């Protein structure tokens, strides 16, 4: 059985915003990856950035909060 664990998920207003975020994160080596938008955040489809809570803690101060829409803790 797959064990769920906690993540921090950043959601975006547009696909473009998500792709710009990924590009920035790759350059700066911010841990995480793009995932399909979890249903806890919004029904439908789209992209979100998932990272471990400890990585979020380490990086939060350095990330530009205007570049994403919401921060949501999820279990996956």
């Amino acid at each position, binding site marked *: 059985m797959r064990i769920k664990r906690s993540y921090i998920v950043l959601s975006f*207003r*547009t*696909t*473009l915003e*998500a*792709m*710009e975020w*990924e*590009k920035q994160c790759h350059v700066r080596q911010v841990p995480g*990856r*793009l*995932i*399909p*938008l979890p249903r806890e955040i*919004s*029904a*439908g*489809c*789209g*992209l979100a950035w998932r990272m471990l809570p400890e990585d979020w803690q380490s990086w939060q101060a350095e990330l530009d909060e205007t570049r994403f829409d919401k921060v949501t803790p999820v279990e996956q």
Partner: protein
Amino acid sequence: MIYLDNAATTLHKPPQVEQAILEALHTAGNPGRGAHEPTLHAARIVLDTRLALAELFHAPDPSCIVFAANATMALNTVLNGVLHPGDHVITTVYEHNSVLRPLYRLRAQGVEVSFTGVDDAARLCYDQWETLLRPTTRALVVTGASNVTGNGTNLVRAADFAHRHGLLLIVDAAQTAGAQPIDVQQLGIDALCFTGHKALLGPQGTGGAYVRPGLQIAPLLVGGSGVHSFDETHPLQMPTVLEAGTLNVHGLAGLCAGVQWLLEQGVENLAAREAALARLFYEQVRTAPGVTVYGDMTMQHRAPIVALNIGQEDSARVADILWEDYGICVRAGAHCAPLMHKALGTAEQGVVRFSFSHFNTEQEVQQAAQAVCALTRELLCE
């Protein structure tokens, strides 16, 4: 074969364009419709293309770049998206049907349209703008350069007029995007529509528009967006609002490679080379007996086009002989620019348009000029 029909489509592209398209065909999924590697790869191609075009046009943000199938679709989107019955538009006789026909259709719905004429050298009569202005004038719609004569539009002057009177400045850059430096912020352009398959060196089926931040354009199409699927209305955020349906990612991969190549080479350098080739051709044909060249070849900013006729000979016959006997590809006829031809007096004869690329060689240009001179001697003796 000597290809001098670059104002229609550039045939010679950098090898990177073909490679990028082929690679995308094998690797790109549907952008923004999932998070597996092929779909993310496609979305990265789209982002990189937006970034490259934003850099080329000096746009403030990649969200200002929206994609369409071609300049015609982009122009239809912009014109239909900002104009309403009761609005008045000033445009020019330079315009291609990609501008004229959307405006004619809007005119049937209550939009009023005025046309700027030209002088004896087919230069725009800018002084007419003040007299054409009305209280209801909403936009100035101009092409960057005539696709018939190559004569350019003075965009600094257009921007000054539009801004002084609070008009939207909408530019058809089909002939100038990638062929001339364009700074949309410095000029204060509200919307710039481009095609990918001409000087931007991409494949056919690509194009789009720069849209100034804050300019609201009602979408021409609504549908799949990859986000907010349960909403009954299409998302309003740029660029999604103007990009319903799956984008032509394979084509955009080629367009991206073409634009990145342009950025590496420098548009100014390439434009200077094209201008020199057009000038070389012009100097060799202009004194040939019976040859009439249209347009002002002394203009600083013009498309690399030389449009001519030989006596009263049908331009279609001249173009066909150039192809059949000399292997030279040019374009005859009306070039989808009926008002330009009416102004030139060539509505029946058409003109033979030679349009140059930086990939052409001086030898090709000289061969083409010799062919025109030989054909002139032949046809005028008939």
